[in-house]
């Protein structure tokens, strides 16, 4: 049974439409991530799920219980939803133990103590119960905030940009730790971020939002390789777009005529853009398609080369750093995949 169902959720501030008919479902134990640039509406959506915002139309349900609709908003405190805030929002006047037990105050003392110990152990902060929030580091506060939100065993956990105040290194380790905690407890989670790497390392399902629209709701691999819109293609991962024209044989581009099933949804003569991920391109001595190496960036195991095609279009490609090519050198290239995504030409004015 789906723990969270959004059905055509719309929300507006005065005359500005912030969320536009968003629908999605989340199964028990799944971790979902709402990804998008700032101002896309992802935080608003999270707050609508939490019950801090009322809907204009549509419905939010949890296991068949109606949480929000146009004329009904179940108060946050009755939703059994946990939330970790961007700034953690720990209560500075309460100790760590009191913070964690804040949501389970009605339980018996022994139960509370047991849960507290369990959670502190889970987040690896045993012995911190009597400290105060300001005595902890950012990462520790983060984990306490998580423990506090998990204490009442919520049906759904919401995380609002949980790693935004951490440095890159800490983000990586914390994301891994928290994913394993969430999976261990089998907690259904919705997280908001603008960082795709965070989304990739945490989420089972990712929803990409832009301008109040949910553009795609998929797993990470599908998002990367089969983006449904040019925006998703551009927002997730690195992308090159080649100009193309649909022909009987496939798509005609500066890299030759590429045959792909994706061309079937277009009619002959249509102008399209072809998504070429950097790792789709490989060198081939035998290839007739020649490109000039324009620039090069060392990336450890790989070089990120910029290639210029005869058409003048540039491609960024990722090539092993075992071989080193000189700038200005001309190389033969081929596409290593036939899994191409095509978008109408007018859908991505910029690359």
């Amino acid at each position, binding site marked *: 049974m789906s723990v969270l169902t959004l059905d055509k959720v719309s929300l507006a501030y005065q005359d500005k439409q912030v969320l536009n008919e968003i629908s999605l479902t989340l199964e028990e134990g799944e971790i979902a991530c709402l990804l998008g640039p*700032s101002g896309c509406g992802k935080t*608003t959506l999270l707050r609508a799920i939490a019950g801090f915002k009322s809907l204009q139309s549509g419905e939010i349900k949890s296991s068949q219980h109606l949480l929000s609709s146009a004329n009904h908003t179940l108060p*946050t*405190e009755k939703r059994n939803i946990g939330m970790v*805030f961007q*700034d*953690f929002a720990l209560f*500075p006047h309460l100790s760590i133990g009191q913070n964690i037990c804040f*949501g389970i105050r009605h339980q018996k003392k022994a139960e509370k103590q047991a849960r507290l110990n369990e959670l502190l152990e889970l987040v690896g902060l045993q012995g911190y119960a009597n400290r105060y929030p300001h005595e902890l580091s950012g990462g520790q506060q983060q984990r306490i905030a998580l423990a506090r939100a998990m204490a*009442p065993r919520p049906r759904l956990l919401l995380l609002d940009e949980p790693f935004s105040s951490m440095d890159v290194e800490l983000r990586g380790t914390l994301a891994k730790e928290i994913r394993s905690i969430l999976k261990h407890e089998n907690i259904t989670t919705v997280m908001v971020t603008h960082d795709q790497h965070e989304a990739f390392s945490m989420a089972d399902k990712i929803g990409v939002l832009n301008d109040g629209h949910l553009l795609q709701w998929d797993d990470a691999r599908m998002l990367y390789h089969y983006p449904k819109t040019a925006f998703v293609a551009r927002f997730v991962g690195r992308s090159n777009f080649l100009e193309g024209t649909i022909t009987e044989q496939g798509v005609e581009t500066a890299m030759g005529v590429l045959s792909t099933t994706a061309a079937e949804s277009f009619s002959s003569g249509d102008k399209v853009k072809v998504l070429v991920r950097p790792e789709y391109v490989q060198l081939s001595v035998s290839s007739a398609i020649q490109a000039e190496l324009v620039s090069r960036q060392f990336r450890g195991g790989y070089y990120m080369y910029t290639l210029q095609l005869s058409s003048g279009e540039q491609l960024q490609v990722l090539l092993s750093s075992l071989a080193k090519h000189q700038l200005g050198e001309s190389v033969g290239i081929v596409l290593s995949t036939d899994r191409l995504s095509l978008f109408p030409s007018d859908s991505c004015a910029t690359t």
Partner: protein
Amino acid sequence: MHNGLIGIRSWWVVLIGLLMALPVLVVLGFVLQPFNQNWQHLYDNLLGEYISNSLILMLGVTVGVLSMGIITAWLTSTCEFPGRRLLSWSLLLPLAIPAYIIAYTYTGVLDFAGPVQSQLREWFGWRYGQYWFPEIRSIGGAVAMLSLVLYPYVYMMARAAFLEQSVSVLEASRTLGNTPFQGFMRVALPLARPAIITGLSLALMETLADYGTVQYFGVTTFTTGIFRTWYGLDDSVSAAQLASLLLSFVAILILLERYSRRKARFHSTSNKEQRGQRYTLKGWPAFWATLSCSLPVIFGFLIPASQLLYWTLTTAQHTFTSDFVVLTTNSVMLAAIAAVVAVCFALLLSYAKRLLGTPMVKGSVAVASMGYAVPGTVIAVGVMLPLAWIDHTIDQWLTEYFGISSGLLLSGTLFALIFAYTVRFLSVSIQAVDAGLGKIKPSMDDAGRSLGLSPFGVLRKIHLPIMKGTVLTALLLVFVDVLKELPATLILRPFNFNTLAVRAYEMASDERLADAGAPSLMIVMAGIIPVILLSKAIAKARPRGAAE
């Protein structure tokens, strides 16, 4: 501090701190004198009553100012209801009315012979003793009067705290299963506690220092006891000893509160403050919100101000004389100068406390701050004693070496008066300035110093611009307080120098309440402008809402 220059400066600060603390220390010093036989008399007959009445008064005022101040502050800062904008600044208006004046006006309105009871008797044909009516001139009446004019301190502080609270903390409490009201009780209120306590302590110190109201209502408290011992028994030593007992009372309260806070911090741990939307109230809740925010304004301001206006109109021909302009100018000028001086010293001392933090500095600031709880007349004596000593010493020295007699250089001048105000109202300004300084992170100081600013440069270039709002608040609070101040003005002012408060007192103490109306109304009028400015300053200080 290892810097030699700062080392020297710290001595200056200690010196200034001690100077400010001097009058209070003089009062405390009387404890060292032997206790005389009057103490036995006080102990046998009166002390118990003084203590119990003072405690009841404090307890009552605590309940009064907390309930009025916190409820109105919460409603106006987090809810939207009809009249909210108007009420959010008019709730500060009672601050402009001196406690003794509100006591006079309510006595005029509610006394047995007053219009309310007379009307009731006329309507229902009652006679004395046949019906129950609350006795205004009682300890309960004193609690009501003091609460009505002192709750704005709590309102002001609590409101600022509520407006500054990180919204996500309140939302976190809701995701943990608390209703907005539970969140208020369990998170917002505890977080606002230091601010509320600050407001409460100002209100309580003023309660303890109040003489006019309790004396008029026939309630015997520590303060009336001090005056009775001094005036009636002609024993200023025992009177000062009583005053120091009062001060230790205050000191214990302050220490208890500090202890109860210990490790817990109250400023928000987040740095991103986000303004949530106000809860829009409709129907009955909106009605109750409007009503509960209107009542303090109606009873604390509109009714007494109308009574004063009525009195003023009935006596206009002989009260509005030409010297009325002089009185008003004197009052406003004195209040303005004292406000600037007190806030300058408050800035200096708060800053020194933060920068140096030596026990000497902290101690002298703490002692100086207690001046607010000391009745004005007692502070005045504490001011006169050292000044007279300085005057006589200088005079003697000049006479001895130069044959010139300098007479009284400081005593009986406006200098003495302003010194007294500074000492008495330092607490108010320090509380406000401290609150502002608390918002500035120590790292900002470090950044300023690393960019080549001196400590005073940090104060001027970094702190002052950030704290403009709080400094303005401090200025206006002292201004209004000085405007209302009576006892110290009365005893310390120079020849031919009168203020509105003096005029109002002279009329009222001659039992000519109606004639006291005009100067009282003028005090209130002169106080309203800064009070309105004050509310603007508070509104400005609130954080801007973040996007999304």
